[in-house]
């Protein structure tokens, strides 16, 4: 019975994610970008942040598992998220300019968001965790 409920919830979240759900953060609304735009935003982040862009473009749980598989030092999701937020703060203005290109919002509007909200916005635009709700 519990398994059935779990499956139903998964189907429901899949259907919801297929509809490019709106996410409101700091009063601004974001929808997942289309395929080519997602790749362009990923490229932009890689050019801006270098190899650490993966902190924004890949699920943190995947990064943790990858570290475990490689047998090296493992940073948990909290630490990885803190590092991602620090990156966003360090490159603040340029990240805002990049996001302005992809969202239609101005740098000033996006500048009202906290680093945490910007992080969530990027994750949602790129569908990093499409079933997370």
């Amino acid at each position, binding site marked *: 019975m519990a398994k059935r409920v779990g499956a139903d919830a998964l189907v429901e979240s899949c259907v919801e994610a297929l509809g*490019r759900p709106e996410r409101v953060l700091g009063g601004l609304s974001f929808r997942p970008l289309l*395929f*080519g735009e997602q790749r362009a935003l990923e490229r932009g982040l890689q050019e801006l942040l270098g190899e650490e862009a993966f902190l924004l473009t890949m699920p943190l749980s995947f990064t943790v598992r990858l570290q475990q598989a490689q047998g090296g030092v493992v940073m948990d999701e909290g630490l990885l998220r803190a590092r991602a937020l620090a990156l966003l703060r360090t490159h603040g203005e340029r990240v805002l300019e990049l996001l302005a290109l992809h969202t239609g919002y101005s740098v000033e509007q996006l500048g009202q968001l906290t680093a945490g909200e910007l992080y969530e916005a990027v994750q949602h635009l*790129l*569908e990093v965790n*499409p079933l997370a709700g």
Partner: protein
Amino acid sequence: MARRAPVEGERESVDWLEAACLLRAVYGLELHGLTTFQAMVYLAGLPRVVALTRGL
């Protein structure tokens, strides 16, 4: 060039050019009009589409 088989624990990356052709041919959809998740869901359904068209 021959494709290298994925080793254990490594997921074979999606060939998006091939994916775009399949989406157009099977569903009549353009990859650039979909999000990555939408494309992945359609692609995941392909084996079922093939089975249905074969009457399985």
